């Protein structure tokens, strides 16, 4: 996908072989510089990046900005801002983007909503990427039963209607004081340990060294979860925590599938073969040979699931399973606006546009990233 200017080298850029200075520069470029040179040609992606940076600053500095603009705090209920029929009033000098049915300022609620949106999307994307990379690496590198186990697990997860699963979990954990997940964690951990031990016994019996290592990794995982469940009372609290958990759960499979596929092909490459024949350990091959080659696809796909996760968070709070009131979030604001949007159009428009532009900015940057990192894909 291309979104910017033509990717052919423009004559106006002064990049000609006759220019010795430019030539010297080419020789000394790091991959990062090469990437940046490609990326900054994409003006649209740059604009998206600027938007994201501004948005992050605005979200962090939300209290300061509302104060500077003279807007009331986001949760301040002010019935004076409603007209005599009790309907919210539109944009005015006092409330730049109008007020909601409780008389709260839409501008400051939208600003605070950016915090929720970004926090949830960034954390869940980071978690999903981490889990996806680890499991995808293990599955692709060790193959065998570990691979089938992880792949089957993904099959089961993908068979669920994702939004329904997320909604159900979020709703169940949002009532009362959250879900206690210590016992399920312990149970899952113990089951994983048993599976790992059986696997390593089988691998030992067949004399397959690399599968013993894989099984021990699995046992380690199980031990980690069991200890986590035993020594900490882990509770998924209602609010942002639930949403992050749920979004991570439904989005890690995407990364894991990509990473697994890449590892499956990378592990057969000559340079890995060479490293192995020199006596390199599995750990060295994974961390020094395979992982560095995965960084580009990981970055690209993480940027691609980020906007999807923003939309998922907003959809969950639109359905009432997100951050709990009175805290502001864009999805919940749009949901509240459904009952009054025929008169109070601004209440529907402002959070919706904020959401649209944020997701669009991330999509544009993601496109620019994958274009700049995969120069082969022209067009």
């Amino acid at each position, binding site marked *: *996908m291309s979104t910017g200017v033509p990717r052919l080298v423009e004559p106006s850029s002064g990049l000609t072989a006759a220019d010795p200075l430019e030539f010297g520069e080419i020789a000394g470029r790091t991959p990062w510089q090469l990437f940046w040179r490609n990326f900054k040609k994409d003006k649209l992606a740059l604009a998206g990046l600027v938007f994201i940076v501004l948005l992050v600053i605005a979200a962090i500095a939300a209290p300061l900005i509302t104060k500077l603009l003279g807007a009331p705090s986001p949760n301040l209920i002010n019935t004076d801002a409603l007209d005599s029929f009790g309907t919210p009033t539109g944009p005015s000098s006092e409330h730049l983007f109008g007020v909601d049915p409780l008389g709260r300022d839409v501008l400051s609620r939208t600003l605070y909503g950016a915090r929720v949106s970004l926090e949830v999307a960034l954390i869940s994307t980071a978690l999903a990427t981490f889990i996806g990379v680890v499991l995808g690496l293990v599955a692709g590198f060790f193959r065998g039963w570990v691979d089938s186990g992880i792949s089957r697990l993904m099959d089961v997860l993908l*068979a669920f*209607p*994702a*939004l*329904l699963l997320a909604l159900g979990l979020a709703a*169940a954990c949002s009532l009362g004081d959250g879900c206690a997940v210590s016992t399920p964690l312990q149970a899952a951990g113990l089951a994983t340990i048993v599976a790992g031990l059986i696997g390593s016994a089988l691998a030992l019996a067949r004399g397959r060294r690399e599968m013993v290592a894989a099984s021990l990794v699995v046992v380690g995982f199980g031990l980690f979860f069991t200890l986590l469940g035993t020594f900490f009372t882990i509770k998924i609290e209602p609010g942002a925590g639930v949403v992050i958990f749920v979004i991570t759960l439904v989005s890690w499979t995407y990364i894991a599938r990509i990473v697994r596929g890449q590892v499956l092909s990378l592990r057969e490459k000559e340079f890995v073969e060479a490293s192995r024949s020199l006596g390199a350990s599995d750990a060295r091959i994974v961390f020094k040979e395979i992982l560095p080659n995965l960084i580009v696809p990981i970055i690209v796909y993480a940027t691609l699931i980020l906007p999807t996760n923003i939309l998922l968070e907003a959809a969950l709070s639109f*359905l009432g399973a997100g951050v709990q009131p009175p805290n502001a979030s864009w999805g919940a604001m749009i949901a509240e606006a459904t009952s009054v949007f025929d008169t109070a159009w601004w209440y529907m428009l402002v959070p*919706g546009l904020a959401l649209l532009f944020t*997701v669009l900015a991330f999509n544009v940057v993601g496109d620019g990233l994958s274009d700049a990192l995969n120069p082969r894909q022209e067009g």
Partner: protein
Amino acid sequence: MIRYILRRLLWVVFLLFAVSFITFVIFYLLPSADPAALRAGRQPNPALVASIRHQLGLDQPWYVQYGRYMKNLIFHFDFGFSYQNGVPVRQLIFSRLPASISLAAGAAFLWLVVGIGVGIIAAVRPRTKLDRASMGLALVGISAPVYWLGLVALYLFSSDIGLIPILPGANSYVPLSEDPFAWFSSLIMPWCVLAVSFAAFYSRLLRGNLTEVLNEDYIRTARAKGLSERRVVFRHGLRSAITPIVTIFGLDLGILLGGAILTETVFNIPGIGRLSYASIVRSDLPVIQGTVLLGAFFIVFANLFVDIFYAFLDPRVRYE
């Protein structure tokens, strides 16, 4: 081939079992609201709650409840009764299914036509203004939340509150069997809104694939033979570029048949999506189970069809 299909069918059965079990565990173990207390009304007295709990079978251990549920499901195709109002879940689901199918089928037709059309137009004229404009629009399309688009569409076009009142708004859904014309006009807006992000995604995907294919050597050969451009693009190019679209189309349709929660909520269409949403809000476990299983059923079978389709095309898959 038959062995391949049989093996996949067995796996499908296992998947549906796993889904039903996990759903049961989630809603049994995690503390959502007590359905008996919900049903007992505003002033629940403990004796009434206890008797309702006994009546619904909630006082038995979880494995007994699950076993009974699966037995009824497998031997009698009985999904149990709603905790909320005692209506059989099977009846609830079948009464809601036509609306979801209407919504999904119409939207799917729309997004296929638009997505493929735009994709081809953009791919045969890469880097022109038309290409850039359509791909820019497509990027906006995949970024827009569907429920918000729905609200904007209602604000602009619905006959009761719209600025340009030309289409029936929310709450106007009529079953096809009652009044085909009203059915069609009430669904125009939901179809368009639901189709936007899919059409955008498909056009981007097709444009990418088709531009790549059109640069292949065999396309150059086809052109060199003197074939018309139309024949080159449709017969030679599109045929191989469209395979991934077919795959994704199968999966998307499978997901949507299980209920488009957001679109159905905005337009108040009485489909599976609204049913499942309402059941989650009310902790109505039998209905949640039924709708999750139905959704999983559609997803898993869509996957199966896509894989079989692939196996027909590519013999290597069968012997994997």
